[in-house]
């Protein structure tokens, strides 16, 4: 960790704080218009809502290494990854609100955020981002660039066929891809041990002869370090890596999840080890970030989020008949 300069450290903190604030605000926004009677179709933001509070370290630890030219694919739970990759928060929020000013003019929604400038995309289908990332990496290779592609997915996804096919293809063709498994211990209600025959998905890298790195703590610095090596390796043309990082899912699988499948106190325990708090405190202790500076960052990101929400709120909906546009370009 010695080689991390203060600016980077503060940046890691700032990005995680931004994401956390975004996800927490989104909880409130999501429930607007859904009380007293919950109706998934109602409210400011209808549909499913998968939030990533507790998983910021993975997105930020990895994406801080990336450039605009690098491609990232994400899964259904992807706000944190999009923000970490630099997707415009206003356009993203507007998309989540279904507005004309959104990334996809309201057509995509929260599971389908596409930003061709920042080279980010995500999908609601388990495992679907891995092959697409292989393709981006293949393109980088064919174009003679040192760009990499990163695919994020959950622990439950490591049992989907596309995981295997993509890792084999990437290894075989030495593609510059980094596969990042965010282990939040659940696939909806199913705990990892009930879906996965082994403990650590990183061990599966051996099936493809590639490095497998397991980061067993929800710690942005540890993730940053591990990802840095994997990404540098990919840029050098030495092929893909598989990273599994431990994260925590503080909220339900989606908003409205009754969470009857886990202990009521589990999340409280998880939050004690919160990676943002941990980094903030550590930076304070090291004198890198004073408590008032930290406060200022927290306020600034809250402001940024509030502005994005306001932007989305004020934006118009697309014209209904625009639904017929854009099947083809």
């Amino acid at each position: 960790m010695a080689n991390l300069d203060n600016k980077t450290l503060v940046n890691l903190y700032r990005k995680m704080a931004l994401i956390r604030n975004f996800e927490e605000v989104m909880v409130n926004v999501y429930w607007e218009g859904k009380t007293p009677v919950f109706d998934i179709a109602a409210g400011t933001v209808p549909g499913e809502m998968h939030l990533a509070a507790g998983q910021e370290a993975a997105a930020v630890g990895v994406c801080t290494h990336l450039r605009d030219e690098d491609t990232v694919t994400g899964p259904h739970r992807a706000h944190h990854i999009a923000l970490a990759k630099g997707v415009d928060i206003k356009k993203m929020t507007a998309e989540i609100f279904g507005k004309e000013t959104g990334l996809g003019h309201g057509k995509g929604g929260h599971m389908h955020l596409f930003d061709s400038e920042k080279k980010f995309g995500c999908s609601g289908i388990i495992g679907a981002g891995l092959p697409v990332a292989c393709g981006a990496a293949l393109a980088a290779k064919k174009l003679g660039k040192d760009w990499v592609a990163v695919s994020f997915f959950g622990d439950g996804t490591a049992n989907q066929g596309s995981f295997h096919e993509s890792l084999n293809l990437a290894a075989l063709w030495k593609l510059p891809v980094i596969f990042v498994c965010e282990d939040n211990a659940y696939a909806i209600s199913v705990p990892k041990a009930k879906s996965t025959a082994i403990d650590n998905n990183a061990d599966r890298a051996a099936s493809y002869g590639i490095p497998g790195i397991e980061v067993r703590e929800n710690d942005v610095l540890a993730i940053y370090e591990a990802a840095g090596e994997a990404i540098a390796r990919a840029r050098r043309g030495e092929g893909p890596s598989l990273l599994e990082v431990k994260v925590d899912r503080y909220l339900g699988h989606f908003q409205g999840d009754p969470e009857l499948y886990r202990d009521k106190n589990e999340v409280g325990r998880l939050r004690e080890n919160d990676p943002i708090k941990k980094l903030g405190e550590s930076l304070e202790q090291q004198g890198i970030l004073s408590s008032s500076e930290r406060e200022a960052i927290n306020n600034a990101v809250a402001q940024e989020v509030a502005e994005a929400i306001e932007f989305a709120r004020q934006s118009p909906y697309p014209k209904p008949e625009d639904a017929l546009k854009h099947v083809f370009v």
Partner: protein
Amino acid sequence: MTATQTERLLTTHKAIAEGIAQEMERDSRVFVMGEDVGVYGGIFGGTADLFTQFGAERVMDTPISETAFIGAATGAALEGLRPVVELMFVDFFGVCMDQIYNHMAKNIYMSGGTLKIPVVLTTAYGGGYSDAAQHSQVLYGLFAHIPGLKIVVPSNAYDAKGLMISAIRDDNPVMYFMHKGVMGLGWMTPLPEAITHVPEESYTIPFGKAAIKRSGEQVTIVTLGIMVHRAMAAAKQLEQEGISAEVIDLRTLVPLDDATIIESVKKTHRLLIVDEDYLSFGMSGEICARVVENALDYLDAPIKRLAVPDVPIPYSRPLEQFVLPNAEKIAAAARSLVQL
């Protein structure tokens, strides 16, 4: 509808779960598997409480490995078991379609009828609640296109239970489509019409028998699933305008009850097909063709189709509402037909 003493009302998802539970009690070969069907009770409640009643051996949560566990359902059925297996959203079929259509659906035929494959493949379908392009699809027409699958699409609780019991007792693969809006879930837009009297005892509903939900004289509206309720609302509206519409609930797409449709068209001379699926190359075209082949001369107006206009389901509410059929659009289409 069977008359019974009790007037117990049930939501569709509870009726489905009850149908499965009764078959599980009756027949030890019946078991359930799928993602989150255990403690969670199925994301759309189709397996609610089964885990508590029957335990983890008979109500099995699976990894997110649809190819493996749906293929395993076929394998277990070939050994004489009777799996009820869930594909959480029909939109996910693309990761496991080969097991469904090249194996579950074809093995009986390829074996010359020497095998039985008693699998019920349950799946949730439909939109209207802003779940966007990968979680709102319908797709029953796509499965109906492939020989070897029976396709069941209940519109209400009573039918749901009887069709489920028929499905479990069938020795052929049955795909059982559950419209999310019909299930009667606390977190979906309420649809009181789908909550019906459901007898506590076990009963079956035969496949291939449409239900005439409402008799009418001037136009036939053929549909299924949640659109039955939209069509009924439209018919009520039309009635106030003095237009008499007949509403047919197909209940199963395969087998398809052509006879009831054709008979109705011979009476009303006008046909509107309402489908929540994509318009082209699907259910609406097929029904149109069956009628044209059998009752062309009875038609006093072109057949009309109301369906999603060949676009993916958009997320944003005004966009989605624009592409989905609803009572107003159905009424308008029927009205314009009658005026022709």
